[in-house]
């Protein structure tokens, strides 16, 4: 079966964006988006775990019995999360400290288990790796954008660089996280529906043109 890279990419980043469309991985989204850098760090850690676990689960999908697939998936995911923790502690200790408690909690991130169950366990290795990559990119983009907005409004800075003294403390708080998340979901839904309507209109126009051409052909015959 040929892998539809374009479909996997648009699914992961836009159509089925894990954060803004599927509303998965809400806990780190709300807790860690006080800074854009945290969003990138968390997003990349999740992307690594998604790609690696998807690849291994896809490789072992015919070996793992159906009855024990969930514990097996959790075992695989937990292993990769531990590897990410070890790597970050060794190579990027500052990021490791700032992600804190939320790094081991990647194990229970619904995005990873959901992709393992709904995609990697049913598709080939290459497609699963791509799915992990693009889902991870979608998650990273959403977290980074939310983090940037909250950092600019809540701390008057971006990526730790001070922009101005003006700041609205609400955006740095937990309530601000829920508010920003709600605004992002609403905006995403609004633009998605606009794009979807435009696409339907285009399709309808194309169909009408095709029908007219067919009718013309019949009349000529």
């Amino acid at each position: 079966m040929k892998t539809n890279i374009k479909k996997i990419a648009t699914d992961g980043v836009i159509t089925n964006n894990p954060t803004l469309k599927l509303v998965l991985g809400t806990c780190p989204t709300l807790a860690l988006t006080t800074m854009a850098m945290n969003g990138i760090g968390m997003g990349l850690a999740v992307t690594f775990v998604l790609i690696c676990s998807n690849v291994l689960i896809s490789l072992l999908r015919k070996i793992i019995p159906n009855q024990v697939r969930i514990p097996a998936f959790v075992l695989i995911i937990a292993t990769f999360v531990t590897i990410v923790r070890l790597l970050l502690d060794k190579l990027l200790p500052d990021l490791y400290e700032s992600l804190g408690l939320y790094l081991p909690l990647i194990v229970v991130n619904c995005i990873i288990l959901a992709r393992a169950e709904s995609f990697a366990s049913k598709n080939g290795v290459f497609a699963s790796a791509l799915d992990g990559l693009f889902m991870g990119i979608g998650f990273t983009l959403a977290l980074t954008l939310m983090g940037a907005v909250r950092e600019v409004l809540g701390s008057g800075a971006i990526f730790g660089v001070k922009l101005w003294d003006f700041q609205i403390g609400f955006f740095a708080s937990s309530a601000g996280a829920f508010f920003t998340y709600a605004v992002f979901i609403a905006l995403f839904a609004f633009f998605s529906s606009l794009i979807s309507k435009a696409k339907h209109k285009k399709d309808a126009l194309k169909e009408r043109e095709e029908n007219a051409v067919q009718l013309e052909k019949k009349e000529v015959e």
Partner: protein
Amino acid sequence: MSKFFKSDWFKCITVLLLLSVILGGTLAFLNDLLYVSPKERTQRAIKKIYGVEVTLKDEDILLDVDNGGEEESNEFGSIQKIYKINDDLLFKSTGGQGYKNGTITLWLKVVKTSDNYKIDKVVLDGYEKQTLMSKFSQSYYDKFLIDVTDSYNNGNGIFLFSPKDEVNKLQNPMTGATKSANAACNAVNTVIKYLTDNNFNVGGNA
């Protein structure tokens, strides 16, 4: 017997066991490969405080529990490491009575002025059981560097920090993490008490 080996039950257990052994072995190998030693962690903390790596000589190590030293304790917490770097003293101090009775460990750089020692820099090292630590930024620890003359006085002439200190606002108003703030204050107080008990001239910032 062959029926047993062909059963789903046997397959499930075998797959899970094999996965556990292989993945566990991989983790054990990587754990050894990526292990961060206490020495490396200390160097990281020193680099964070001084901006450069500092080679410690034996005579610079006044106390180190990792090298067989015995930790210094008082009612606020305990000190695990004391290094003499240039003329400064560098403490690794753990404060108790945090959230769920957990602890916070801080590095404190205490510098010598003409006739005093004062706290010059405070950096977080680690914590136990504190769930809101990600919200404590460096600006919070920098509050320990101010003149504490007006803050809470325990009656013995030693100026100690308290999370309910209205003057210095050491209770983080955003998180409301009073218990964690208490552990952080205790880590600093441990050092102040140690300096006082050991007849250091505590003044200036401290």
